[in-house]
Protein backbone atom coordinates (compact mmCIF):
# COMPACT_ATOMS: atom_id res chain seq x y z
CA UNK A 1 0.00 0.00 0.00
CA UNK A 2 1.33 3.39 -1.03
CA UNK A 3 0.79 5.68 1.98
CA UNK A 4 1.63 8.90 0.16
CA UNK A 5 -0.92 8.07 -2.54
CA UNK A 6 -3.52 7.56 0.17
CA UNK A 7 -2.66 10.85 1.86
CA UNK A 8 -2.78 12.65 -1.47
CA UNK A 9 -6.21 11.17 -2.25
CA UNK A 10 -7.57 12.11 1.16
CA UNK A 11 -6.40 15.70 0.72
CA UNK A 12 -7.87 15.87 -2.76
CA UNK A 13 -11.26 14.75 -1.42
CA UNK A 14 -11.39 17.74 0.91
CA UNK A 15 -10.40 20.20 -1.81
CA UNK A 16 -12.76 19.14 -4.55
CA UNK A 17 -15.40 21.76 -5.43
CA UNK A 18 -18.97 20.63 -5.99
CA UNK A 19 -20.67 21.25 -9.32
CA UNK A 20 -24.28 22.37 -9.64
CA UNK A 21 -25.70 18.85 -9.88
CA UNK A 22 -23.86 17.72 -6.75
CA UNK A 23 -25.18 20.79 -4.95
CA UNK A 24 -28.73 20.25 -6.22
CA UNK A 25 -28.72 16.64 -5.00
CA UNK A 26 -27.46 17.79 -1.61
CA UNK A 27 -30.21 20.38 -1.42
CA UNK A 28 -32.70 17.54 -1.81
CA UNK A 29 -31.01 15.78 1.12
CA UNK A 30 -31.48 18.93 3.19
CA UNK A 31 -35.10 19.13 2.06
CA UNK A 32 -35.73 15.58 3.32
CA UNK A 33 -33.79 16.28 6.52
CA UNK A 34 -35.93 19.34 7.12
CA UNK A 35 -39.14 17.49 6.28
CA UNK A 36 -38.42 14.55 8.51
CA UNK A 37 -36.86 16.58 11.29
CA UNK A 38 -33.92 14.20 11.44
CA UNK A 39 -31.43 12.25 9.39
CA UNK A 40 -27.94 10.84 9.03
CA UNK A 41 -26.69 13.97 7.35
CA UNK A 42 -22.92 13.47 7.50
CA UNK A 43 -23.21 9.84 6.40
CA UNK A 44 -25.39 10.78 3.41
CA UNK A 45 -23.38 13.77 2.21
CA UNK A 46 -20.20 11.70 1.88
CA UNK A 47 -22.04 9.31 -0.44
CA UNK A 48 -23.51 11.70 -2.98
CA UNK A 49 -20.89 11.54 -5.72
CA UNK A 50 -20.51 7.75 -5.46
CA UNK A 51 -24.26 7.23 -5.86
CA UNK A 52 -24.61 9.97 -8.44
CA UNK A 53 -22.07 8.35 -10.75
CA UNK A 54 -23.54 4.89 -10.16
CA UNK A 55 -27.06 6.00 -11.06
CA UNK A 56 -26.00 8.45 -13.80
CA UNK A 57 -23.40 6.40 -15.62
CA UNK A 58 -22.85 2.89 -14.32
CA UNK A 59 -25.93 0.96 -13.21
CA UNK A 60 -28.37 -0.56 -15.68
CA UNK A 61 -31.97 -0.18 -14.51
CA UNK A 62 -35.48 0.88 -15.47
CA UNK A 63 -36.92 3.43 -13.04
CA UNK A 64 -40.51 2.63 -14.05
CA UNK A 65 -39.93 -1.11 -13.90
CA UNK A 66 -37.79 -1.41 -10.75
CA UNK A 67 -37.97 -5.21 -10.66
CA UNK A 68 -36.88 -5.65 -14.28
CA UNK A 69 -34.83 -8.85 -14.37
CA UNK A 70 -31.92 -7.43 -16.35
CA UNK A 71 -31.09 -4.65 -13.89
CA UNK A 72 -27.82 -4.41 -12.02
CA UNK A 73 -28.40 -4.93 -8.31
CA UNK A 74 -27.42 -2.13 -5.97
CA UNK A 75 -27.44 -2.52 -2.18
CA UNK A 76 -26.75 0.37 0.16
CA UNK A 77 -25.45 -1.71 3.03
CA UNK A 78 -24.88 1.38 5.16
CA UNK A 79 -28.64 1.84 5.32
CA UNK A 80 -28.33 4.93 7.49
CA UNK A 81 -27.02 6.77 4.42
CA UNK A 82 -30.41 6.24 2.74
CA UNK A 83 -31.11 9.96 2.30
CA UNK A 84 -28.50 9.91 -0.46
CA UNK A 85 -30.10 6.90 -2.13
CA UNK A 86 -33.65 8.28 -1.79
CA UNK A 87 -32.52 11.49 -3.44
CA UNK A 88 -30.99 9.63 -6.39
CA UNK A 89 -34.03 7.35 -6.74
CA UNK A 90 -36.36 10.37 -6.72
CA UNK A 91 -34.09 12.19 -9.15
CA UNK A 92 -34.24 9.22 -11.52
CA UNK A 93 -38.03 8.90 -11.30
CA UNK A 94 -38.42 5.78 -9.17
CA UNK A 95 -40.85 7.91 -7.15
CA UNK A 96 -41.95 11.50 -6.87
CA UNK A 97 -39.47 14.01 -5.46
CA UNK A 98 -42.25 15.35 -3.23
CA UNK A 99 -42.08 12.11 -1.21
CA UNK A 100 -38.70 13.20 0.17
CA UNK A 101 -40.29 15.77 2.47
CA UNK A 102 -42.22 12.97 4.22
CA UNK A 103 -38.97 11.26 5.24
CA UNK A 104 -39.40 9.36 8.53
CA UNK A 105 -42.95 10.62 9.00
CA UNK A 106 -45.96 8.43 9.79
CA UNK A 107 -47.44 7.06 6.56
CA UNK A 108 -44.29 7.63 4.49
CA UNK A 109 -42.57 4.78 2.67
CA UNK A 110 -39.22 6.49 3.20
CA UNK A 111 -37.97 5.44 6.63
CA UNK A 112 -34.75 6.21 8.42
CA UNK A 113 -33.38 2.99 6.96
CA UNK A 114 -34.43 1.70 3.52
CA UNK A 115 -36.92 -1.15 3.18
CA UNK A 116 -37.09 -3.29 0.08
CA UNK A 117 -40.79 -4.01 0.40
CA UNK A 118 -41.63 -0.29 0.45
CA UNK A 119 -39.18 1.71 -1.64
CA UNK A 120 -39.02 1.15 -5.41
CA UNK A 121 -35.38 0.58 -6.35
CA UNK A 122 -34.28 -0.70 -2.94
CA UNK A 123 -33.13 -4.32 -3.31
CA UNK A 124 -32.65 -5.25 0.35
CA UNK A 125 -33.70 -3.79 3.67
CA UNK A 126 -30.61 -2.56 5.46
CA UNK A 127 -29.82 -0.59 8.57
CA UNK A 128 -28.36 -3.28 10.77
CA UNK A 129 -24.76 -3.21 9.54
CA UNK A 130 -22.81 -6.02 7.91
CA UNK A 131 -25.78 -7.51 6.07
CA UNK A 132 -25.48 -6.10 2.56
CA UNK A 133 -22.33 -7.88 1.43
CA UNK A 134 -23.47 -11.45 2.31
CA UNK A 135 -26.77 -10.78 0.54
CA UNK A 136 -24.86 -9.41 -2.45
CA UNK A 137 -22.75 -12.58 -2.59
CA UNK A 138 -25.99 -14.58 -2.78
CA UNK A 139 -27.26 -12.34 -5.58
CA UNK A 140 -23.99 -12.61 -7.51
CA UNK A 141 -24.11 -16.40 -7.18
CA UNK A 142 -27.74 -16.35 -8.35
CA UNK A 143 -26.70 -14.49 -11.50
CA UNK A 144 -24.02 -17.10 -12.14
CA UNK A 145 -26.39 -20.05 -11.65
CA UNK A 146 -28.89 -18.45 -14.02
CA UNK A 147 -26.15 -17.55 -16.50
CA UNK A 148 -27.17 -13.89 -16.65
CA UNK A 149 -24.91 -10.87 -16.91
CA UNK A 150 -26.24 -8.46 -14.33
CA UNK A 151 -23.75 -7.15 -11.78
CA UNK A 152 -24.10 -6.57 -8.04
CA UNK A 153 -22.85 -3.38 -6.38
CA UNK A 154 -22.66 -2.87 -2.61
CA UNK A 155 -21.75 0.27 -0.72
CA UNK A 156 -20.69 -0.13 2.90
CA UNK A 157 -19.63 2.42 5.44
CA UNK A 158 -16.21 2.42 7.02
CA UNK A 159 -17.51 1.94 10.56
CA UNK A 160 -19.57 -0.87 9.09
CA UNK A 161 -16.39 -2.71 8.17
CA UNK A 162 -15.95 -3.38 11.91
CA UNK A 163 -18.61 -6.09 11.47
CA UNK A 164 -17.12 -9.57 11.06
CA UNK A 165 -19.85 -10.74 8.70
CA UNK A 166 -18.32 -8.52 5.97
CA UNK A 167 -15.05 -10.39 6.18
CA UNK A 168 -16.84 -13.75 6.10
CA UNK A 169 -18.61 -12.64 2.94
CA UNK A 170 -15.39 -11.33 1.39
CA UNK A 171 -13.71 -14.72 1.80
CA UNK A 172 -16.72 -16.31 0.14
CA UNK A 173 -16.80 -13.80 -2.74
CA UNK A 174 -13.15 -14.54 -3.49
CA UNK A 175 -13.59 -18.30 -3.14
CA UNK A 176 -16.42 -18.18 -5.68
CA UNK A 177 -14.46 -15.85 -7.99
CA UNK A 178 -17.37 -13.41 -8.13
CA UNK A 179 -16.11 -10.91 -10.65
CA UNK A 180 -19.69 -9.68 -11.07
CA UNK A 181 -19.51 -8.23 -7.54
CA UNK A 182 -18.27 -4.75 -6.63
CA UNK A 183 -17.76 -3.51 -3.08
CA UNK A 184 -17.39 0.24 -2.59
CA UNK A 185 -16.45 1.51 0.85
CA UNK A 186 -17.42 5.05 1.81
CA UNK A 187 -14.24 5.80 3.74
CA UNK A 188 -15.08 9.12 5.39
CA UNK A 189 -13.00 8.08 8.41
CA UNK A 190 -15.53 9.08 11.02
CA UNK A 191 -17.98 6.72 12.65
CA UNK A 192 -20.66 7.53 15.18
CA UNK A 193 -18.40 8.05 18.20
CA UNK A 194 -15.44 9.60 16.42
CA UNK A 195 -12.51 8.87 14.10
CA UNK A 196 -12.35 5.28 12.82
CA UNK A 197 -8.63 5.42 13.57
CA UNK A 198 -9.47 5.74 17.25
CA UNK A 199 -12.67 3.71 17.62
CA UNK A 200 -11.44 0.64 15.74
CA UNK A 201 -8.69 1.31 13.25
CA UNK A 202 -9.24 -0.27 9.84
CA UNK A 203 -5.75 0.45 8.54
CA UNK A 204 -4.04 -0.81 6.52
CA UNK A 205 -7.41 -1.22 4.81
CA UNK A 206 -6.22 -1.42 1.20
CA UNK A 207 -3.72 -4.10 2.20
CA UNK A 208 -6.44 -6.05 3.96
CA UNK A 209 -8.81 -5.90 0.99
CA UNK A 210 -6.00 -6.98 -1.32
CA UNK A 211 -4.88 -9.73 1.03
CA UNK A 212 -8.42 -11.10 1.11
CA UNK A 213 -8.15 -11.52 -2.66
CA UNK A 214 -10.11 -8.59 -4.04
CA UNK A 215 -8.96 -6.59 -7.02
CA UNK A 216 -8.55 -3.22 -5.31
CA UNK A 217 -8.27 0.43 -6.10
CA UNK A 218 -8.61 3.62 -4.09
CA UNK A 219 -10.04 6.86 -5.32
CA UNK A 220 -11.16 10.29 -4.30
CA UNK A 221 -14.82 9.55 -3.62
CA UNK A 222 -15.93 13.03 -4.62
CA UNK A 223 -14.06 13.07 -7.95
CA UNK A 224 -16.59 12.21 -10.66
CA UNK A 225 -14.01 11.21 -13.24
CA UNK A 226 -12.17 8.96 -10.79
CA UNK A 227 -15.42 7.29 -9.66
CA UNK A 228 -16.59 6.77 -13.24
CA UNK A 229 -13.26 5.28 -14.19
CA UNK A 230 -13.31 2.95 -11.15
CA UNK A 231 -16.76 1.60 -11.93
CA UNK A 232 -16.32 1.29 -15.68
CA UNK A 233 -14.61 -1.59 -17.40
CA UNK A 234 -15.44 -4.09 -14.69
CA UNK A 235 -14.18 -6.50 -13.61
CA UNK A 236 -10.79 -5.02 -12.99
CA UNK A 237 -9.34 -8.51 -12.87
CA UNK A 238 -11.17 -11.54 -14.33
CA UNK A 239 -12.17 -14.03 -11.64
CA UNK A 240 -11.86 -11.52 -8.80
CA UNK A 241 -14.43 -9.35 -7.05
CA UNK A 242 -13.56 -5.66 -7.05
CA UNK A 243 -13.20 -3.40 -4.01
CA UNK A 244 -13.13 0.36 -4.45
CA UNK A 245 -11.96 2.28 -1.41
CA UNK A 246 -13.55 5.71 -1.74
CA UNK A 247 -11.85 8.42 0.32
CA UNK A 248 -14.59 10.84 1.22
CA UNK A 249 -15.38 13.67 3.59
CA UNK A 250 -18.11 13.13 6.15
CA UNK A 251 -20.70 15.87 5.66
CA UNK A 252 -19.11 16.92 2.35
CA UNK A 253 -20.50 20.23 1.07
CA UNK A 254 -21.62 21.64 4.43
CA UNK A 255 -18.56 23.36 5.85
CA UNK A 256 -19.73 23.34 9.45
CA UNK A 257 -20.63 19.62 9.30
CA UNK A 258 -17.55 18.36 7.47
CA UNK A 259 -15.46 16.00 9.56
CA UNK A 260 -17.62 16.53 12.65
CA UNK A 261 -18.95 13.33 14.26
CA UNK A 262 -21.83 15.21 15.85
CA UNK A 263 -23.25 15.53 12.33
CA UNK A 264 -23.34 11.72 11.87
CA UNK A 265 -27.02 11.96 12.76
CA UNK A 266 -28.96 15.11 13.59
CA UNK A 267 -32.47 15.77 14.73
CA UNK A 268 -34.38 18.99 15.33
CA UNK A 269 -32.10 21.05 13.10
CA UNK A 270 -32.93 24.73 13.66
CA UNK A 271 -34.40 26.72 10.73
CA UNK A 272 -31.40 29.07 10.62
CA UNK A 273 -29.07 26.06 10.31
CA UNK A 274 -31.19 24.65 7.49
CA UNK A 275 -31.01 28.07 5.82
CA UNK A 276 -27.23 28.08 6.21
CA UNK A 277 -27.04 24.66 4.58
CA UNK A 278 -29.11 25.82 1.62
CA UNK A 279 -26.93 28.86 1.27
CA UNK A 280 -23.74 26.80 1.09
CA UNK A 281 -25.36 24.56 -1.48
CA UNK A 282 -26.74 27.30 -3.69
CA UNK A 283 -25.75 27.28 -7.35
CA UNK A 284 -22.45 28.81 -8.27
Amino acid at each position, binding site marked *: MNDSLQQHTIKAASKIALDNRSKALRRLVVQALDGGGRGHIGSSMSLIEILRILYDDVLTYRAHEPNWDGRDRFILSKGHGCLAQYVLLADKGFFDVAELEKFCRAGSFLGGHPEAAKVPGVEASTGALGHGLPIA*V*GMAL*AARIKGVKNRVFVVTGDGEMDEGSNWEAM*MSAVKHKLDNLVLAIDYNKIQSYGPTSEVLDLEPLMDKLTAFGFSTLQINGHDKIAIRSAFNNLPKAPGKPTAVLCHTIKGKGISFAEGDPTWHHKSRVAPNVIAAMYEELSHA
Partner: protein
Amino acid sequence: MRKTCINHVYKLAKRDPRVVFIGSDLGPGLLDEMKQEMPSRWFMEGVSEQHCVGMAAGLALEGFVPYFNTIATFITRRCFEQVAVDLCLHDLPVRLIANGGGLVYAPLGPTHLAIEDIAIMRALPNMTIFCAADADEMTRFMDASLDWPHPIYIRLAKGGDPVISTDAHGFKIGKAITHREPSEITFITNGIMVGRCLAAANYLKVEGIEAGVINMHTVKPLDEVSVLNAADASSLIVTVEEHIRSGGLGTAVAECIADNDCETPVCRLGLPDKFPEDYGSQDHLLSQAGLTPENIAEQARTRLGNTIKRIV
Protein backbone atom coordinates in the same frame (compact mmCIF):
# COMPACT_ATOMS: atom_id res chain seq x y z
CA MET B 1 -33.86 -38.19 10.52
CA ARG B 2 -31.01 -35.83 9.66
CA LYS B 3 -29.92 -38.03 6.78
CA THR B 4 -33.50 -38.29 5.52
CA CYS B 5 -33.82 -34.51 5.60
CA ILE B 6 -30.51 -33.72 3.91
CA ASN B 7 -30.89 -36.40 1.25
CA HIS B 8 -34.32 -35.04 0.51
CA VAL B 9 -32.79 -31.69 -0.40
CA TYR B 10 -31.05 -33.49 -3.28
CA LYS B 11 -34.33 -35.10 -4.33
CA LEU B 12 -36.04 -31.71 -4.32
CA ALA B 13 -33.11 -30.17 -6.23
CA LYS B 14 -33.51 -32.78 -8.98
CA ARG B 15 -37.19 -31.94 -9.17
CA ASP B 16 -36.92 -28.16 -8.99
CA PRO B 17 -34.11 -25.92 -10.33
CA ARG B 18 -34.81 -23.30 -7.65
CA VAL B 19 -33.46 -25.53 -4.89
CA VAL B 20 -29.92 -24.86 -3.61
CA PHE B 21 -28.07 -26.38 -0.67
CA ILE B 22 -25.78 -24.39 1.64
CA GLY B 23 -23.77 -26.03 4.41
CA SER B 24 -21.47 -24.30 6.90
CA ASP B 25 -18.66 -26.77 7.63
CA LEU B 26 -20.35 -30.16 7.75
CA GLY B 27 -19.14 -33.75 7.62
CA PRO B 28 -17.01 -35.01 4.73
CA GLY B 29 -18.94 -36.41 1.79
CA LEU B 30 -22.20 -34.65 2.63
CA LEU B 31 -24.50 -34.69 -0.41
CA ASP B 32 -21.64 -35.74 -2.69
CA GLU B 33 -24.05 -36.83 -5.41
CA MET B 34 -25.64 -33.40 -5.50
CA LYS B 35 -22.21 -31.76 -5.49
CA GLN B 36 -21.17 -33.85 -8.52
CA GLU B 37 -24.42 -33.56 -10.42
CA MET B 38 -25.26 -29.90 -9.81
CA PRO B 39 -22.12 -28.17 -8.50
CA SER B 40 -23.51 -24.68 -9.07
CA ARG B 41 -26.31 -25.32 -6.57
CA TRP B 42 -24.24 -26.96 -3.81
CA PHE B 43 -22.24 -24.80 -1.39
CA MET B 44 -20.02 -25.57 1.58
CA GLU B 45 -19.22 -22.12 2.95
CA GLY B 46 -17.13 -22.73 6.03
CA VAL B 47 -17.62 -21.61 9.61
CA SER B 48 -19.29 -18.37 8.55
CA GLU B 49 -22.89 -18.84 9.57
CA GLN B 50 -23.89 -15.17 9.55
CA HIS B 51 -22.64 -14.88 6.00
CA CYS B 52 -24.43 -18.12 5.05
CA VAL B 53 -27.81 -16.77 6.16
CA GLY B 54 -27.25 -13.52 4.28
CA MET B 55 -26.09 -15.39 1.19
CA ALA B 56 -29.21 -17.57 1.39
CA ALA B 57 -31.29 -14.39 1.54
CA GLY B 58 -29.55 -13.02 -1.55
CA LEU B 59 -30.27 -16.24 -3.45
CA ALA B 60 -33.90 -16.25 -2.28
CA LEU B 61 -34.34 -12.61 -3.34
CA GLU B 62 -33.39 -13.83 -6.82
CA GLY B 63 -35.99 -16.60 -6.82
CA PHE B 64 -34.08 -19.56 -5.39
CA VAL B 65 -35.21 -21.78 -2.50
CA PRO B 66 -32.10 -22.28 -0.32
CA TYR B 67 -31.84 -25.04 2.30
CA PHE B 68 -29.15 -24.00 4.80
CA ASN B 69 -27.84 -26.61 7.21
CA THR B 70 -25.79 -26.16 10.36
CA ILE B 71 -26.09 -26.76 14.10
CA ALA B 72 -29.29 -25.42 15.71
CA THR B 73 -27.59 -23.17 18.27
CA PHE B 74 -25.48 -21.50 15.59
CA ILE B 75 -28.59 -20.59 13.61
CA THR B 76 -30.64 -19.38 16.52
CA ARG B 77 -28.09 -17.82 18.83
CA ARG B 78 -25.33 -16.61 16.52
CA CYS B 79 -27.38 -15.61 13.49
CA PHE B 80 -30.43 -14.16 15.17
CA GLU B 81 -30.13 -10.77 13.48
CA GLN B 82 -29.53 -12.31 10.04
CA VAL B 83 -32.52 -14.60 10.50
CA ALA B 84 -34.68 -11.70 11.73
CA VAL B 85 -33.67 -9.06 9.19
CA ASP B 86 -32.44 -10.93 6.11
CA LEU B 87 -35.01 -13.73 6.19
CA CYS B 88 -38.06 -12.74 8.24
CA LEU B 89 -38.26 -9.03 7.42
CA HIS B 90 -37.99 -9.90 3.70
CA ASP B 91 -40.24 -12.95 4.27
CA LEU B 92 -38.06 -15.18 2.10
CA PRO B 93 -38.44 -18.92 1.43
CA VAL B 94 -35.19 -19.97 3.09
CA ARG B 95 -35.16 -23.26 5.00
CA LEU B 96 -32.94 -23.49 8.09
CA ILE B 97 -32.12 -27.12 8.80
CA ALA B 98 -31.07 -27.17 12.45
CA ASN B 99 -29.00 -30.14 13.60
CA GLY B 100 -29.34 -31.21 17.21
CA GLY B 101 -32.67 -29.78 18.35
CA GLY B 102 -33.12 -30.12 22.11
CA LEU B 103 -30.69 -32.40 23.93
CA VAL B 104 -29.38 -34.43 20.98
CA TYR B 105 -25.82 -33.21 21.55
CA ALA B 106 -25.87 -34.13 25.25
CA PRO B 107 -22.23 -35.28 25.32
CA LEU B 108 -21.06 -31.99 23.79
CA GLY B 109 -22.41 -29.71 26.49
CA PRO B 110 -24.43 -26.50 26.67
CA THR B 111 -22.83 -24.65 23.73
CA HIS B 112 -24.45 -27.25 21.47
CA LEU B 113 -27.73 -27.87 23.29
CA ALA B 114 -30.64 -26.12 21.57
CA ILE B 115 -32.94 -25.80 24.55
CA GLU B 116 -34.39 -22.34 23.80
CA ASP B 117 -34.24 -22.39 19.98
CA ILE B 118 -38.00 -22.50 19.50
CA ALA B 119 -38.55 -19.59 21.88
CA ILE B 120 -36.06 -17.56 19.86
CA MET B 121 -37.59 -18.43 16.50
CA ARG B 122 -41.17 -18.04 17.73
CA ALA B 123 -40.50 -14.39 18.49
CA LEU B 124 -39.95 -13.64 14.80
CA PRO B 125 -42.78 -12.52 12.51
CA ASN B 126 -43.16 -14.60 9.31
CA MET B 127 -41.18 -17.55 10.72
CA THR B 128 -42.54 -21.08 10.48
CA ILE B 129 -41.26 -23.68 12.97
CA PHE B 130 -41.36 -27.41 12.32
CA CYS B 131 -40.29 -30.22 14.68
CA ALA B 132 -40.40 -33.71 13.19
CA ALA B 133 -41.49 -36.71 15.22
CA ASP B 134 -39.59 -39.22 13.08
CA ALA B 135 -37.87 -39.74 9.74
CA ASP B 136 -41.10 -40.57 7.89
CA GLU B 137 -42.73 -37.35 9.01
CA MET B 138 -39.59 -35.52 7.90
CA THR B 139 -40.02 -36.96 4.40
CA ARG B 140 -43.62 -35.76 4.22
CA PHE B 141 -42.62 -32.35 5.54
CA MET B 142 -39.77 -31.91 3.05
CA ASP B 143 -42.15 -32.41 0.13
CA ALA B 144 -44.48 -29.83 1.64
CA SER B 145 -41.62 -27.39 2.30
CA LEU B 146 -40.78 -26.75 -1.34
CA ASP B 147 -43.53 -24.24 -2.08
CA TRP B 148 -44.11 -22.81 1.40
CA PRO B 149 -43.67 -19.05 0.84
CA HIS B 150 -42.05 -18.16 4.19
CA PRO B 151 -38.82 -18.92 6.08
CA ILE B 152 -38.87 -22.23 7.97
CA TYR B 153 -36.90 -23.37 11.00
CA ILE B 154 -36.57 -27.15 10.73
CA ARG B 155 -35.67 -28.71 14.06
CA LEU B 156 -33.98 -32.07 13.71
CA ALA B 157 -34.46 -34.57 16.51
CA LYS B 158 -32.43 -37.66 17.30
CA GLY B 159 -32.09 -40.16 14.50
CA GLY B 160 -33.16 -43.77 14.74
CA ASP B 161 -36.13 -43.28 17.05
CA PRO B 162 -39.13 -45.57 16.47
CA VAL B 163 -41.37 -44.41 13.64
CA ILE B 164 -44.80 -43.51 14.97
CA SER B 165 -46.19 -41.39 12.12
CA THR B 166 -47.94 -43.01 9.16
CA ASP B 167 -49.05 -41.97 5.68
CA ALA B 168 -52.63 -42.29 6.92
CA HIS B 169 -52.07 -39.20 9.09
CA GLY B 170 -51.34 -37.14 5.99
CA PHE B 171 -49.25 -34.00 6.36
CA LYS B 172 -49.87 -30.31 6.08
CA ILE B 173 -47.68 -27.52 7.47
CA GLY B 174 -49.64 -25.87 10.29
CA LYS B 175 -52.12 -28.75 10.74
CA ALA B 176 -51.69 -30.87 13.88
CA ILE B 177 -51.97 -34.66 13.76
CA THR B 178 -54.21 -36.45 16.23
CA HIS B 179 -52.64 -39.76 17.26
CA ARG B 180 -55.17 -40.43 20.02
CA GLU B 181 -58.43 -38.54 20.27
CA PRO B 182 -58.64 -35.82 22.95
CA SER B 183 -59.92 -37.24 26.21
CA GLU B 184 -59.84 -36.51 29.94
CA ILE B 185 -56.19 -35.58 29.57
CA THR B 186 -54.79 -34.51 26.20
CA PHE B 187 -51.09 -34.32 25.52
CA ILE B 188 -50.01 -31.69 23.00
CA THR B 189 -46.44 -32.39 22.00
CA ASN B 190 -43.99 -32.78 19.10
CA GLY B 191 -40.64 -34.23 18.09
CA ILE B 192 -39.54 -37.40 19.86
CA MET B 193 -41.87 -36.50 22.74
CA VAL B 194 -44.79 -37.75 20.62
CA GLY B 195 -43.62 -41.33 21.10
CA ARG B 196 -43.06 -40.75 24.81
CA CYS B 197 -46.54 -39.24 25.23
CA LEU B 198 -48.11 -42.24 23.44
CA ALA B 199 -46.32 -44.48 25.94
CA ALA B 200 -47.43 -42.23 28.83
CA ALA B 201 -51.02 -42.48 27.58
CA ASN B 202 -50.72 -46.27 27.76
CA TYR B 203 -49.58 -46.07 31.39
CA LEU B 204 -52.53 -43.82 32.22
CA LYS B 205 -54.97 -46.14 30.45
CA VAL B 206 -53.92 -48.98 32.72
CA GLU B 207 -54.93 -46.76 35.62
CA GLY B 208 -58.26 -45.98 33.99
CA ILE B 209 -57.39 -42.48 32.74
CA GLU B 210 -57.99 -41.87 29.05
CA ALA B 211 -55.43 -39.59 27.39
CA GLY B 212 -55.34 -38.10 23.90
CA VAL B 213 -52.11 -37.31 22.01
CA ILE B 214 -51.77 -34.49 19.49
CA ASN B 215 -48.61 -34.05 17.47
CA MET B 216 -48.19 -30.29 17.03
CA HIS B 217 -45.31 -30.64 14.55
CA THR B 218 -45.73 -27.02 13.46
CA VAL B 219 -45.26 -24.76 16.48
CA LYS B 220 -45.74 -21.64 14.36
CA PRO B 221 -48.21 -21.01 12.85
CA LEU B 222 -50.00 -22.85 15.65
CA ASP B 223 -53.03 -24.98 14.78
CA GLU B 224 -55.32 -23.12 17.18
CA VAL B 225 -58.41 -25.06 16.10
CA SER B 226 -56.85 -28.33 17.22
CA VAL B 227 -55.71 -26.78 20.51
CA LEU B 228 -59.17 -25.38 21.29
CA ASN B 229 -60.99 -28.58 20.25
CA ALA B 230 -58.69 -30.54 22.53
CA ALA B 231 -59.20 -28.06 25.36
CA ASP B 232 -62.98 -28.30 25.00
CA ALA B 233 -62.85 -32.09 25.17
CA SER B 234 -60.40 -32.38 28.07
CA SER B 235 -60.20 -31.72 31.81
CA LEU B 236 -56.48 -31.05 31.46
CA ILE B 237 -54.11 -30.15 28.62
CA VAL B 238 -50.54 -31.34 29.14
CA THR B 239 -47.87 -29.91 26.85
CA VAL B 240 -44.64 -31.89 26.61
CA GLU B 241 -41.55 -30.55 24.88
CA GLU B 242 -37.81 -31.07 24.65
CA HIS B 243 -37.25 -27.37 25.27
CA ILE B 244 -37.28 -24.99 28.21
CA ARG B 245 -40.78 -24.48 29.60
CA SER B 246 -40.88 -20.83 28.58
CA GLY B 247 -41.36 -19.59 25.06
CA GLY B 248 -41.89 -22.87 23.23
CA LEU B 249 -44.82 -25.14 22.47
CA GLY B 250 -46.27 -25.05 25.99
CA THR B 251 -46.26 -21.26 26.01
CA ALA B 252 -47.85 -21.15 22.55
CA VAL B 253 -50.64 -23.51 23.67
CA ALA B 254 -51.19 -21.61 26.94
CA GLU B 255 -51.37 -18.31 25.05
CA CYS B 256 -53.90 -19.75 22.64
CA ILE B 257 -56.07 -21.04 25.47
CA ALA B 258 -55.86 -17.76 27.42
CA ASP B 259 -56.53 -15.63 24.37
CA ASN B 260 -59.68 -17.58 23.57
CA ASP B 261 -61.23 -17.37 27.06
CA CYS B 262 -60.93 -21.10 27.47
CA GLU B 263 -60.72 -22.29 31.07
CA THR B 264 -59.14 -25.71 30.64
CA PRO B 265 -56.04 -25.94 32.85
CA VAL B 266 -52.70 -26.31 31.11
CA CYS B 267 -49.77 -28.23 32.57
CA ARG B 268 -46.49 -27.45 30.81
CA LEU B 269 -43.77 -30.08 30.97
CA GLY B 270 -40.33 -29.38 29.60
CA LEU B 271 -36.80 -28.48 30.58
CA PRO B 272 -36.01 -26.23 33.55
CA ASP B 273 -34.84 -22.65 33.04
CA LYS B 274 -31.15 -23.45 33.29
CA PHE B 275 -28.28 -24.71 31.16
CA PRO B 276 -27.97 -28.49 31.50
CA GLU B 277 -25.06 -29.31 33.79
CA ASP B 278 -24.49 -32.95 32.93
CA TYR B 279 -23.29 -34.84 29.83
CA GLY B 280 -24.04 -38.45 28.89
CA SER B 281 -26.92 -39.17 26.52
CA GLN B 282 -30.04 -37.35 25.38
CA ASP B 283 -32.08 -39.99 27.23
CA HIS B 284 -30.11 -39.32 30.39
CA LEU B 285 -30.74 -35.56 30.30
CA LEU B 286 -34.41 -36.10 29.44
CA SER B 287 -34.72 -38.42 32.44
CA GLN B 288 -33.14 -35.78 34.67
CA ALA B 289 -35.81 -33.36 33.46
CA GLY B 290 -38.59 -35.84 34.20
CA LEU B 291 -39.44 -36.44 30.57
CA THR B 292 -39.64 -40.26 30.57
CA PRO B 293 -43.02 -41.83 29.73
CA GLU B 294 -43.49 -42.92 33.36
CA ASN B 295 -42.69 -39.46 34.70
CA ILE B 296 -44.86 -37.75 32.13
CA ALA B 297 -47.78 -40.00 33.12
CA GLU B 298 -47.10 -39.40 36.81
CA GLN B 299 -46.98 -35.61 36.45
CA ALA B 300 -50.13 -35.59 34.32
CA ARG B 301 -51.99 -37.79 36.82
CA THR B 302 -50.94 -35.64 39.79
CA ARG B 303 -51.95 -32.46 38.06
CA LEU B 304 -55.28 -33.94 36.97
CA GLY B 305 -55.92 -34.92 40.61
CA ASN B 306 -55.16 -31.37 41.77
CA THR B 307 -57.37 -29.92 39.06
CA ILE B 308 -60.31 -32.14 39.98
CA LYS B 309 -59.85 -31.38 43.69
CA ARG B 310 -59.90 -27.66 42.96
CA ILE B 311 -63.05 -27.92 40.87
CA VAL B 312 -64.82 -30.03 43.57
